[in-house]
């Protein structure tokens, strides 16, 4: 998995009490993310590979690598669908 993920230019993020609120300016939508989502989106201030994101999650939470990978995969899928992040090569 060498694909690199990065935030969409329309994304704005702010953190509060361990959670986050994400805006997508292009679609004028917004939603909250939990602490894991916040960790991943914060890590994506600079583009990262899937493996690098899993390392970021493991560094933040007391969690096994397999579980971190599963959580990260699911969150990235949601974010890609909502177009708040992009993967290299995506439109």
């Amino acid at each position: 998995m060498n694909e690199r993920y990065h935030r969409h230019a329309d994304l704005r993020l702010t953190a509060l009490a361990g959670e986050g609120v994400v805006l997508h300016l292009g679609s004028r939508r917004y939603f909250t993310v939990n602490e894991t989502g916040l960790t991943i989106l914060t890590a994506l201030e600079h583009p990262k590979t899937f493996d690098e994101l899993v390392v970021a999650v493991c560094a933040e939470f007391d969690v096994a690598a397999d579980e971190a990978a599963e959580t990260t995969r699911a969150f990235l899928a949601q974010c890609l669908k909502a177009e708040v992040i992009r993967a290299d090569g995506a439109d």
Partner: protein
Amino acid sequence: MNATNVVRPGFVVECPDQDLAEALTRWLDGSCLTWPATFRIRARIVPALTTLTDERVSFPQEGIEIQAGPPDGTVRIRWTDFPAEAVVSSDEPIVDLAVTPDALAHFEMAERGFFLVALVFVLRRIGWYHVHGAALIDPRGRGWMFVGNSRTGKSTTTALLAGCGWTVATDDIAFLQHAGTVARVHGFRSPIALRSGGHQLLSSVRPLGTGSDFSRRQKRGYSPEELGGRWTETVVPEILLFPTIGTETSIAPMRPSEVLSELVTWSHWVLYEPLHAQEHLDLLGRLAGQARGVRATFGPDLIRRPTLLQELIP
């Protein structure tokens, strides 16, 4: 035709039409706000609006169409009920207004609609961010905001509390600003506008004076002083209350992220343009972080017992 130039601390109105210049100046002076920097309004009367060529997606809301963001970064606001247009500069606190005689004849309606929306976008360019809500200070000196939609009891409750030792900044038009480590609210001074239902409720427990007649908005307006209270320009909120109307007054706590999410809803201009979006969002986050947030139901019992809010949130 020569332009009438009105220069005030905080704003300049350039307008060839004296009536329009005076109406705009009176409205802005009446707000009693200490503006954060100088903004400029260039206004003119036009017989009709030109055909719209702006191809950006238009967002309608209550008789107003808004186009904002890329490619040129301007904000175009059109009043569809009584034609008028505002174009706010992409990055400077300047707005060009084109107002038809029909729109000028309905200036009072535009004060809380078309003109206010134009002002909201101008003020974003100098660090003030609008939130749809009331701002007050209770007798203990705590700052409160009632944030939410029309018809949720904000104005009626504000009018009620104005007569019970509370100080009022605004019942509806609040501007947030970074003030050191806190988010501070500036209240646009304008009469607390009561619909007939709210007027009737308050009249049932205490006599109300005549107030001002806003017949076009089907409301009556009262200054905090007419209700026995006082006005203040600024409030530092410690309590954020998101109201609905029900049968009995109650409150329910909220998580900080829920509070922030609600604030985005009621300060939704944060979603319209990339300019200052992060600053705006961060300021809402600061407000959500500094204040306790609760969902509240306002019931008729509050009218009979106005201390109830302070009892529920000691």
